[in-house]
């Protein structure tokens, strides 16, 4: 019998009054894979991530994450890590204190936590600044601290919302390597980003959300084949093709 998929949704829907944010979202993400989640601004990506992380309840439909129903926050939370678009950090703490705090909150044994924190700080080139307060950190340093915090407890599924945003090329490279390494460790990465080359390089599967609906899903190469425009048949061409709104084209 095959293990539960990392994420499975069934007709997931979220509305705010009359506004439909996510509609009839059905998808399956196998364990240990990197899922690139694409979509224009306002497509419903963040709402989807919040539903899957139990931070928002769906209006209808169901989903499981790491085999646990998202209606049961206590069951889901030990298995997930989440980096929102704005890294959740206390400005008044130092980077090291922040990571120790979350290791403590998640009850990671102190010795294990110390080893992991040192190793990850070193990997992200933050060791020198680990004892400076976060309010003195650059955007990139905050982002890196947020990612370390999200994976510190070694979750089964990690949700990353624009993890490479604000990073310089070297840090972005480190982030991409880290994501690839997480997948190698059988951690599932749910990656939402606007930076298509990142998805192209890392994702096993790409899902494109448009107006709250999943309008395309497949491997990056498979999606590129669907590109109807553009000479290169790149992921960008494919993205533009599947999120094309005929009404906009007519009025343009």
């Amino acid at each position, binding site marked *: 019998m095959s293990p539960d998929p990392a994420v499975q949704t069934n007709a997931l829907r979220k509305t705010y009054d009359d506004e439909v944010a996510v509609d009839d979202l059905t998808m399956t993400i196998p364990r240990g894979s990197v899922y690139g989640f694409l979509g224009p601004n306002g497509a419903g990506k963040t709402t989807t991530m*919040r539903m899957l*992380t*139990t*931070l*928002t*309840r769906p209006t209808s439909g169901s989903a499981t994450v790491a085999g646990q129903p998202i209606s049961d*926050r*206590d069951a889901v*939370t*030990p298995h*997930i890590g*989440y980096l*929102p678009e*704005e*890294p*959740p*950090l*206390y*400005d*008044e*703490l*130092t980077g*090291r*204190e922040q990571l*120790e*705090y*979350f*290791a*403590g*909150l*998640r*009850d990671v044994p*102190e010795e294990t936590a110390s080893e992991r924190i040192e190793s990850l700080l070193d990997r992200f080139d933050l060791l020198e600044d680990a*004892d*400076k*307060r*976060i*309010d*003195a950190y650059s955007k990139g340093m905050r982002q890196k601290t947020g990612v370390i*915090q999200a994976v510190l407890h070694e979750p089964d599924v990690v949700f990353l919302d624009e993890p490479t945003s604000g990073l310089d090329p070297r840090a972005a490279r480190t982030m991409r390597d880290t994501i690839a390494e997480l997948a190698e460790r059988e951690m599932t990465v749910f990656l939402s980003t606007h930076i298509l080359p990142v998805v192209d390089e890392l994702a096993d599967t790409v899902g494109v959300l448009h107006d709250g609906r999943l309008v395309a899903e497949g491997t990056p190469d498979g999606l590129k084949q669907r590109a109807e425009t553009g000479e290169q048949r790149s992921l960008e061409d494919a993205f533009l093709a599947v999120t094309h709104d005929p009404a906009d084209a007519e009025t343009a």
Partner: protein
Amino acid sequence: MARRQALSIVRTKFRRLVRVGRTKPWLALIQAFTLATGMAVVIGRVPVPGLSVLLQEPGGYVYGQRLAAGDGPAVRRTVAGVAGIGVVFVALVTVLQTYTAYASRETTADAHLLAVPVETYAASQLLVFAGFVGAFVLPVVAAGGVALAVGAGDPLLAPAVVVAGLGVVALGTAVGFVGGLAILRAFQTVPQVREHRLAVGGPLALVYFTLFVESRRAGSLLGATPLGWYGDLALAPSGAGAVGHALLAAGVTLPLAVLLGAVGVRLGSTVWLADPPEGDAGQTDADGSRSPAERLLAATCARPTAAVARANWLRLRRAPKALFFMAMPVIIVGSTSAELTRAIPDSLPMVVAVYGGLALGMGVTLNPLGNEGAVLPATVLAPGGERRLVHGYVLAMALPGVPLVALATLLAGLWLTALPPAVVLATVVVGVAVALTGTVVSLAIGGLLPNYDGLDPTDSAATKMPKPRAAAVYALVMSLLASPAFAGLYAPASVGGGAAAGAVGVATTLLLCAAVGRLSYRRAVALFRTHEL
């Protein structure tokens, strides 16, 4: 050109404020209520059937009558005192506005500084602060002036009071603007001052709250200084004020305000365009060591609970502005408490105990969701995060706070009253119970009425002031919890007071604390568990 630019900035600022008021009717209602209360207080007792029940204290109308009856010197002393308090109050509010406008680093500030000369921007800030304070103070002053004029039967008093009020606002704003910028400049250039900023802010906050609590004493003190000359100006048409002082106040205000404004503009130019202080780029005060309290916590509590409590302490220590919220009870119950202790002096220890519980809640636990800010999603996603959050917050507040409340109550009982030791001890027990219950009560109320206002994603983790509504509800619940013990311990024998009544009162309060505390704990945990973002 510069004037047009400055006025455009001011106009836009006020347009934004009006729109905020429209989208937050509660905020507008609180402001309207504050304004109406201020106007009612300055008008005071009037011979209108029904109103005399609400407005019993003498105000503008009664003082006008006394003026007409020839009691000019006494009225002059009062009006001069009010004027003196007014100048200091406006100055302190402007210091606060100047500081917070800079500290919050409004995202539009840089855009403004790139679009207009820094002097123009500084002038616009001064005008915004004056306009903001004036919008609250001048209607109150005008109401007082009309009441005084009607009471005295002298219509000229109304415009004279308004002119004096304008002088108070102009001088107070200019002084506060310069003062606020000078403090900011000192923070930028003197590391020792920046490091001990609480020592600068603390006395200012103390002066501010003393103006409310000890208004009579503050008035007689300030009225005797040149600040009281605005009282002479207000009373000039009646002849009750010193003519020389009135002329000096009228003649000096404008040049003085302009001079101070120019100094402020100059200071502003250096403050807003200054590089960040060197120390801020690499604060390394954390050496990884743990205080004895933190070590005790680690040894006795679950690791997640200890982590929450420690993070709270670290944040409070490094961003001590939350401690200023502890002064909120003074605004809410300060005058009532002062009257109560005047009427029943022996009630002082109980007032201290309840005030202690209120202050702890308002400083630490009354806005847990708002204080978590952008970290909230990560906190609630920790397994069992809601319980750990509640336990950690309770510990963070109770561990240093409750013993302090007990000690303050004990000292007040032993030194400032002649109560028997048994009653003092009972009051300490009540104080501990109320303060302890207050930890969970404040978390439950704060969870229901969180304040996310000013939640800026780039400064999301800074502590936020609790919602005034939450503070009012919290004060009410805490007062109700203590009231049986209060009634039992301090009721005179003629109305059934005595040892038995005291015991029943204390027991009732303890039972109420247990019941309300249990309910609040469950409510707080449930609120965090079901919280959606």
